[in-house]
């Protein structure tokens, strides 16, 4: 359904950090959305408040998980929901990460902040078919240790599955932090990949995406093999409202996941 929201029930609420919540959503009635691919997004409707685009952060058989950071009116309303509340969902919209592009290749997943959320289903899918890929790197950046998303689950991925080279870094350490400090791009130095045979998936704040793509290119990863997920204002998700333009790109249809080759020159122009 793309025209009107389909009611979904909140079946689980998990507080990920001070400002971020994961909502588990299941169809409230008979009607359900078509299956999502990792990287795609839904328009999530908070009754009486509004609608925002949110990438899917886990894909179950009927359930979907959306991880939402409270930054505006709608996201704040979503973060305040309790189990049993209902939201409306439209979707799935946009492009997926396209994990199949990485078959037989090394994978580098680089995330900043809540950028880990849209990449979680990709990491899970890669872990589930581990032999189809070469080395699998997950490089996670977070402002502080307290803001780190899915911390216990990242540990579980590393422990229970085939080799996952995971590194986490924070911008501002707390006294108890024992790990890396610094930008997520610094982790690329110790990541394990052969650049000419690598597909990278990157999501985070735009400056982080630029810096990561630049470093990956510098290492020799091909631009079309750097897949990034970008954020723009969206009102309709169906290519009609005009808000999500980046040059000729309509982010809701051509993105949110898009090859660096298509956006590099556009993102180089201030305020485009």
């Amino acid at each position, binding site marked *: 359904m793309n025209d009107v929201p389909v*009611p979904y029930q909140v079946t689980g609420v998990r507080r990920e950090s001070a400002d971020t919540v994961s909502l588990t959503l299941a169809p409230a009635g008979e009607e359900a959305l078509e299956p999502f691919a990792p990287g795609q997004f839904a328009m999530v409707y908070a009754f009486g408040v509004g609608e925002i685009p949110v990438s899917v952060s886990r894909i179950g058989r009927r359930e979907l998980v959306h991880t939402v950071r409270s930054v505006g009116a709608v996201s704040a309303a979503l973060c305040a929901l309790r189990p049993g509340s209902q939201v409306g969902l439209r979707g799935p919209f946009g492009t997926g990460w396209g994990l199949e592009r990485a078959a037989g290749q090394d994978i580098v997943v680089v995330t900043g902040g809540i950028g880990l959320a849209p990449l979680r289903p990709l990491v899970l899918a890669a872990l589930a078919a581990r032999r189809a890929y070469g080395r699998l790197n997950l490089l996670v950046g977070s402002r502080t240790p307290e803001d780190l998303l899915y911390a216990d689950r990242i540990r579980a991925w590393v422990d229970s599955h085939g080799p996952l080279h995971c590194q986490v870094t924070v911008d501002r350490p707390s006294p108890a932090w024992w790990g890396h400090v610094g930008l997520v791009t610094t982790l690329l130095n110790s990541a394990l990949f052969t650049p000419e045979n690598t597909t990278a998936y990157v999501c985070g704040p735009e400056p982080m995406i630029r810096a990561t793509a630049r470093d990956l290119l510098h290492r020799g990863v091909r631009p079309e093999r750097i897949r990034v997920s970008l954020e723009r204002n969206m009102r309709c998700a169906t290519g009609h409202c005009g808000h999500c333009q980046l040059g000729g790109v309509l982010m809701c249809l051509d993105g949110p996941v898009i090859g660096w080759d298509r956006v590099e020159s556009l993102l180089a122009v201030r*305020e485009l």
Partner: protein
Amino acid sequence: MTNSTTTAVLDRDGLSALVQALAAQGRTVVGPTVRDGAVVLAEIASADDLPFGWGTEVEAGRYRLVPRDDGAVFAHTAGPQSWKTYLHPQRERLWSAERAADGHLSVTEDGSEQPSYAFLGVRPCDLRAIAIQDRVLAGGRYPDRGYRERRTGAFLIAAECTEPGATCFCVSMGGGPAADSGFDLALTEVLDRAGHRFLVRTGSEAGEEVLSGLPRHPADAHTRNAARTAVDAARDRMGRAMPPVDLRALMGESLEADRWDDVAARCLTCGNCTMVCPTCFCTTTEEVTDLTGDHAERWQHWDSCFDVDFSHLHGGPVRASARSRYRQWLTHKLSTWYEQFGSSGCVGCGRCVTWCPVGIDITEEAAALHDELTDRLRREKQKETER
């Protein structure tokens, strides 16, 4: 569209009969009328509501109604509105939602029946604009159902252009004063010693049917020639022209041009150009609730890329400066529209020039960007040869 075209001649009574025939079909007939010192589109009850004896004088930032002695009805240029007012209305309810006491949500799509329109006096530039909005709103992966219903139900009567204005530049955008396709009926106004009349051509079966019920005269050679001559003459009388260059490439090469600062110093970012533009389609949404808080409605309304909030993200707007917002508008219209919808977004109707409160002229801006680019390329070449 049918291949066979029937032509005939209508006199003023024939025009009246046309309005009545369309109304008798249950259609809402919309045409130009005179109100508040402008030619505005409105529902008309009879042909008497049309702007007989009114013309317009336009310039950048200026629009005046002027009386005409000849009683012409289609001698005015584009007014402040376009047909998107009806096909892509300014406000539209998308859905209604109810929240029950137990928290259950139910959402109902707005299913109100769409009016069946007849548009009288659609200019060739506006025919092209409608075709462009068709591609944007009714084409693609997610056709807009409401738009499509209104559009397929609409009966279009073109009025070929015989009195272009000083801000018109359709010819330089690949169009012209003649209506070639996309209409049910096309009228060409003829005023000479033989009288005030309209050469009418059919463009569809629906048009044939309507015409067959009207009092009409056979199309004589004199009227045909007079109509052709008037339209041909209009082609050479366009008040403005876009620079004869590849505008798409020009915009692509000009993203960092200095000219954007120059235009930004004049632009008020009021968004008038986007409101009057017949192809600008951008919308935003708002959530409206009643006092109980259990009933909410989702409304869509026109938005403008000149609004700071248009590109709002939680970190702030993507396009904060006037420079970037004007650039967004112009480059989208003339360049990136091709990538998105396969054509230019400009039909050369001149509305944005006329209705800009400070008289910014899109053709002048494009020419200035072209000059700047030419200069830059020349300097670069010079540097290369010096090396």
